[in-house]
């Protein structure tokens, strides 16, 4: 009896094991076709497009507006919007493992978008861009496209996000200090920026950081809150003519003088000038609006999305242009829409992507401050520009000069979009930078220390032909 039980048990185990392994390794190249493409009478047969997104209810509402407009125009198409609120990549990975992928997915350039693209899971959107009379690359603001290599577009962002220097106007007024300029032509140099930050850093006795008696152990108010994640410092590396990897994509470049100077400058804000809180948290939890409103800091460098929460707080805030190292610059970061190769309806999916990136669909998110429009015309034509930059709590007086103009004229793509193997390289770099922020090593020492290791991980650039 025992024997037979054992046999049954091992059989059960084997079947389950067998089935899971089979499912893991075998991948039917085409799913069985369930819906016909065209009806008998010439009118298109009803089809359903599946799309996965993340986002808060207000972002979801914006997608639904776009989808509604889309479904009204194409009455035979239904869009099945699947909202994955958290652990998006984990969920999408299991869906890929189970061959249950959507037609369109919102993707993040820093995580699994490129790993998927490298395995050929996405369609090349360049072909659609080339053949579409209504839209072309020139009608979009710069750096919205994510490419695997030149000419191979894997995703289009529904809008850009850039960086600015947010500040509390009243604090500057009360201190009698000139606030950050908005126009790029008048932007602070790094030294001017440090000087202003010193004047705005106050210890518990009311002395500022220029006072010889200034007590850096008891700081009541900091001049600047500086983000120490790659998005934050990338602005200044690009402004200084530096990069994450060399122009030919062959060499690790964060230990080059242009980048090292920036890292050291940031660390000095914390450890030498004592004008920035040291080591700031790597994840930007609540942050900017609180820090400024409560006068814990006078200035914060943050993404323009901070406008939403700032607009909801009751105090006079404004935004200035980032200080420049050599030239004005901002990094563009944004999620993207990608189309899975397995889609049966590429043309219809493309139409949907076009609706999703149309600023008209997401006007609520844009006026709220969270998003920015994707079409260049919304930045250059006065009536369109006015719709999302004037008389809105989320768009203070400096916004047009400090954010809109800079984004249009001097922006740089996010490093996640062109540095191959980016997250692995940063796994090596970020721990070294922690030591720099903590003042345990100079930027040069720390980055030279990991340069050899990082170099092994450098695999080239996606924005040049290799």
């Amino acid at each position, binding site marked *: *009896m*025992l024997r037979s*039980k054992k046999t049954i*048990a091992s059989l*059960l*185990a084997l079947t*389950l*094991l067998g*089935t*899971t*392994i089979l499912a*893991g*390794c075998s*991948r039917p190249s085409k799913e069985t076709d369930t819906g016909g493409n065209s009806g008998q009478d010439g009118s298109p047969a009803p089809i359903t497009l599946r799309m996965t997104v993340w986002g808060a209810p207000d972002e979801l509402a914006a997608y639904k507006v776009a989808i509604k407009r889309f479904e009204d125009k194409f009455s035979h198409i239904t869009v099945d919007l699947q909202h994955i609120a958290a652990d998006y*990549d*984990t969920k999408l*990975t299991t869906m*890929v*493992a189970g061959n249950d992928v959507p037609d369109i997915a919102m993707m993040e350039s820093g*995580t*699994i978008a490129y*790993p*998927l693209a*490298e*395995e050929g*899971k996405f369609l090349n959107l360049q072909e659609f861009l080339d053949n579409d009379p209504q839209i072309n690359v020139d009608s979009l603001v710069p750096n919205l496209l994510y490419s695997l290599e030149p000419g191979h577009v894997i995703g289009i962002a529904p809008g850009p996000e850039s960086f600015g220097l947010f500040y509390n106007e009243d604090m500057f007024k009360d201190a009698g200090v000139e606030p950050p300029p908005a126009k790029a032509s008048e932007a602070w140099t790094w030294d001017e920026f440090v000087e202003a930050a010193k004047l705005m850093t106050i210890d518990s006795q009311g002395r500022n950081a220029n006072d010889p008696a200034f007590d850096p152990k008891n*700081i009541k108010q*900091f001049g600047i809150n500086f983000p120490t994640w790659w998005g934050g410092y990338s602005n200044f590396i690009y402004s200084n003519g530096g990069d994450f990897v060399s122009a030919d994509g062959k060499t690790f470049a964060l230990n080059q003088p242009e980048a090292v100077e920036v890292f050291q400058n940031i660390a000095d804000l914390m450890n030498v000038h004592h004008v920035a*809180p*040291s*080591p700031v*948290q*790597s*994840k930007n*939890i*609540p942050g900017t609006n609180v*820090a400024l409103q409560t006068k*814990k800091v006078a200035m914060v460098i943050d993404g323009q999305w901070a406008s939403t929460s700032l607009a909801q707080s009751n105090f006079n805030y404004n935004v200035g242009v980032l200080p420049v190292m050599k030239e004005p610059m901002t990094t563009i970061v944004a999620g993207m829409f990608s189309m899975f190769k397995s889609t049966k309806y590429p043309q219809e999916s493309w139409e949907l992507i076009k609706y999703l990136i149309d600023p008209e669909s997401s006007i609520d998110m844009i006026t709220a401050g969270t998003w920015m429009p994707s079409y260049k015309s919304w930045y250059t034509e006065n009536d369109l520009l006015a719709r999302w930059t004037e008389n809105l709590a989320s768009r203070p007086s400096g916004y047009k000069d400090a954010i809109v103009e800079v984004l249009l004229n001097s922006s740089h793509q996010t490093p996640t979009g062109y540095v191959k193997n980016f*997250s*692995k390289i940063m*796994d090596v770099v*970020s*721990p*070294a930078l*922690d*030591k720099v*922020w*903590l003042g345990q090593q100079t930027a040069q020492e720390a980055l030279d220390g990991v340069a050899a290791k990082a170099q092994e991980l450098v695999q080239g650039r996606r924005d040049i032909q290799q």
Partner: protein
Amino acid sequence: MRKGLFYGLLFTSPAILGFLLFTLGPMIASLVLSLSDYNVFKEGTAFIGFDNYVRLFSGEDDLFYQSLGATFYFVALRVPAVILISFAVALLLNMNVKGRALFRTIIYLPSIVPAVASAMIWMWLLNPDLGLINTVLEWLHLPTSNWLYAESSVIPSVVLTTLWGIGGTVIIFLAGLSGIPKQYYEAIDVDGGGWYSKLRHITIPMVTPTLFFNTIMTIIGSFQVFNEAYILTDGGPNNKSLFYVFYLWRTGFRDTEMGYASALAWVLFVIILFFTFIVFKSSKSWVYYEGGGRS
């Protein structure tokens, strides 16, 4: 005894069947995948023998050693802290005091507040510049700390945050304490013994079966610490809180090297198995079952 075998299997059959149906398959699958270069996104998977394990132990992957070290440190700090503090709190809650229903519920509350909500509190409490804890320490003229943001204090700080989640352990101790017959204590009263001899001679021996359970589960849980790195620290600063399962998850899901992640998982499996085995073996000499059953 033949009858014992029949009934034994009969009573345990749902559990055994459940294991065979839902657990064994995925476990073996991951063991097999640990011998492969499985990448969820890639077409085709090649078997590469023990290459993943060689890569682990050859010293090539320093994050493996780093994360193992961080995890051992965490386990060494957390297991005694959780056991001692939960037992002490359980003793307090077992006192015959007014409103103990309320006290018991309060102790368990942090365990049911969703992590998204409570992570924010930690970020604030432990923020070096704006946080409550440093403000209080300054007020008391005690030295402050950078807590989660310094290499030397990040793991103790994470242990501290997990102590708010001891509600479950406390409740299990309480259930154990409630099973101690009152007349045993009365016997000590008759002998003129105080609270210490009650604790020493009645409470502790009688609660060893639950102590044993809590120790095993705290060990298994602590080795698999993940959420704290995922939500609070992101493994930093300088990888000092790069916990093993967090590293494993990052390797498997973000870097899509699921084969290698499976090898990492099976190494941890063996480590946890080893420690659990030791505690099980040792239990014969310190766990007291009134039923005389063997562990």
